[in-house]
């Protein structure tokens, strides 16, 4: 009953406004037309004068130059003309590793998620990455990275980004790698080493990804300066998926960068990540060296600093170049921890108590291209077990002051920009009382569209 009356009232109210608005728009249009014609006539007059002055000169070009594409007859219509850029990355390796049932980093919760191989012995292929990207329309760009592996296709990134917000702003939405740190946005095929560094492995698994939104601003300054903020679901480690509205994780990051002379360039950054975890599964050792399954609920905060320095003689990186990179992260977690077993949901009775930890780690690496196509590099990874407080420790969990470290040395050969073969040897001391020498032979091949790599 009420609806038609409301509608009538709304229409009555809307029409005069609408009419006014239309009149205003017409007036504005007329004004614009007038201004446009005036400026055009002015420009024409100016051009006339200019031509009169130059009339004596030999050459007067009457036609405006036309783009070559316009001069040629049209190609036959093709339905695939708008296909996005597609590239496929094939990677695989031979790994010579000790036989260990389970691998973990002593003193650290195992970061959930997957690893692209890396722990399989012998021959294996890593995930094959399919990258598809294109402009969606004048306003958006789209990008997808799917990892094809046995029995699964994982969407690593699937996002859109605005291209014409202006003022140095861009919004990214969907699933994307967070802009924190330096290596985080890089997928394994763009890593300088076969295996991930220990800090990322302990803190993020492979890298921190999120479903959400990112706002990035680039300053209009000569010194490169960008600021970014992200809010998202926060489902990946160190957060967990939670059945709630709102955001589960927030990230802030900023980068500065520039050149020093023609041969050197650098970038430095600071990042912060806050994530919420609810019953995050973990595994720790207890005082009897037995595995104890745990659930953590609470907040995880990470801050980090990253620095990259690149050198190439006269800025010409094709012959020789050197890259130094280092990242430091510090994580503090606060909440509650309880025991758990596979058979039951939630906490085991009388096992819950307060949990606080503060842990950190860093890696530092140098990669040197000593002649075209050949590079060698060394990386040192180190974690600090920091302080872990289990409260009254009802689960009798063990604390440790063991410092996990790893040395890695690599040599790679890239016959072209699209292929790379790598040999790596690592001395891994990430598990207490284990010193393991690991050997890797790896290939990374890229098919299709020419990839452009970030700094």
């Amino acid at each position, binding site marked *: 009953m009420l609806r038609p009356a409301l509608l009538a009232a709304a229409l009555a109210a809307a029409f005069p406004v609408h009419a006014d608005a239309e009149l205003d728009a017409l007036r504005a249009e007329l004004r614009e037309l007038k201004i446009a014609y005036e*400026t055009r006539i002015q*420009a024409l007059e*100016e051009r006339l004068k*200019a031509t009169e002055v*130059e009339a004596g*000169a*030999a*050459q007067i*070009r009457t036609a405006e*130059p036309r*783009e*070559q*594409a316009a001069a040629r007859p049209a190609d036959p219509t093709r339905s695939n003309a708008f296909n996005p850029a597609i590239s496929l990355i094939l990677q695989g390796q031979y790994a010579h590793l000790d036989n260990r049932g389970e691998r973990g980093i002593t003193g650290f919760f195992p970061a959930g998620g997957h690893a692209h191989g890396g722990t399989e012995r012998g021959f294996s292929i890593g995930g094959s990455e399919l990258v598809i990207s294109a402009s969606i329309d004048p306003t958006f*760009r789209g990008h997808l990275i799917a990892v094809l592996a046995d029995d699964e296709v994982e969407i690593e990134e699937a996002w859109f*980004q605005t*291209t*014409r*917000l*202006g003022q*140095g*702003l*861009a919004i990214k939405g969907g699933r994307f790698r967070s802009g924190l740190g330096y290596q985080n946005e890089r997928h394994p095929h763009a890593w300088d080493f076969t295996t991930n560094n220990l800090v990322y492995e302990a803190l993020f698994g492979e890298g921190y990804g999120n479903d959400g939104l990112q706002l*990035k601003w*680039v*300053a*209009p*300054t*000569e*010194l*490169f*300066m*960008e600021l970014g903020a992200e809010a998202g679901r926060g489902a990946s480690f160190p957060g967990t998926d939670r059945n709630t509205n709102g955001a589960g994780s927030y990230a802030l990051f900023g*980068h*500065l*960068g*520039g*050149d020093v002379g*023609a041969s050197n*360039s*650098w*970038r430095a950054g600071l990042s912060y990540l806050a994530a919420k975890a609810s019953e995050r599964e973990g595994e720790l050792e207890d005082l009897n060296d037995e595995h104890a399954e745990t659930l953590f609920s609470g907040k995880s905060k990470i801050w980090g600093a990253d620095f990259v320095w*690149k050198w*190439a003689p*006269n*800025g*010409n*990186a*094709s*012959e020789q170049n050197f890259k130094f990179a280092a990242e430091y992260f510090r994580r503090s977690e606060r909440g509650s921890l309880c025991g758990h077993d596979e058979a039951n949901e939630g906490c085991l009775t009388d096992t819950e108590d307060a949990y606080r930890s503060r842990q950190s780690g860093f890696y530092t690496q140098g990669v040197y291209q000593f002649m*075209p*196509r050949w590079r060698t590099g060394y990386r040192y990874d180190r974690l600090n077990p920091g302080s872990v407080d289990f409260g009254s420790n009802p689960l009798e969990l063990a604390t440790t002051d063991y410092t996990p470290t790893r040395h890695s040395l690599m040599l790679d050969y890239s016959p*072209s*920009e*699209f292929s790379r073969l790598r040999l790596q040897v690592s001395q891994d001391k990430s598990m207490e009382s284990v010193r393991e020498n690991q050997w890797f032979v790896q290939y990374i091949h890229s098919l299709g569209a*020419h*990839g*452009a*790599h*970030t*700094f």
Partner: protein
Amino acid sequence: MKRLLVLLILWLPVYAHAALNVFACEPEWAALAKEIGGGDVKVYSATTAMQDPHRIEARPSLIAQMRRANLVVCTGADLEVGWLPVLLQNANNAAVQPGRPGYFEAARFVPLLDKPARLDRADGDVHAAGNPHLHTDPRNILRVAEALTARLAEVDPANAAAHRARGQAFAARWQAAITRWETRAAPLKNLPVAVQHKSFSYLLAWLGLREVAVLEPRPGVEPSVSHLARVAAQLQATPARAVLRAAYQSPRPADWLASRTGIPALALPYTVGGNARAQDLFGLFDDTLDQLLKAAP
């Protein structure tokens, strides 16, 4: 904080339009933009003559410059495919995105040579659109200059008349220079030369030189010693008068060949800044011709 942001945003457009910022991907386009834009533009060259334009790092400093640019002038034809997209995506500058007036590709105004009959990466670093080193023919620079004049007038309407006047003056001087160079270069007709990379196809086509050998086995692939030995053998049969390389390229292959065969190796400036004499576009071609004429009989 909010007030600060608002202030910052209000202040930005004024700041950005103080002078027209031109971001040139290569030194030749930086030089051309300076000729046509004169004092009305501030030109930044992303690369120097000592850098390989195929392989440039997408450095933070380049992103910062791209962010400030009102006009981006690049070669196109996939020459910058490894780094320009990264800059465009990360600089968040709407005005210079492809398709907008602020994005200018020289290759779109020039007929390209060496267009590959088939596209396969087995043939090396091939460019689907054709050879991108188009500025080595001064007639192409004239074509690009016309288009760039029109574009500068479009992007910078306040100084449109000045851009057009400078553009016409440059075209007249350049046309005269081309006539002068063509007269001087008459002895170069049919001169057989070897090139390290297909950097000079347009130059050779313009002056009628003959390219009898390429040192790279495939585009963008460094020659191995065994391949160079084959090239040396080939040059025994069809001798060349000079081996040409660009200033940014490694001197090793051309020098090795020169020492082996006695054919002089010439380091041509390739672009503005490639040597002490090539300090502008006119100097670039003056020096290139002088060097080539020394090799002619």
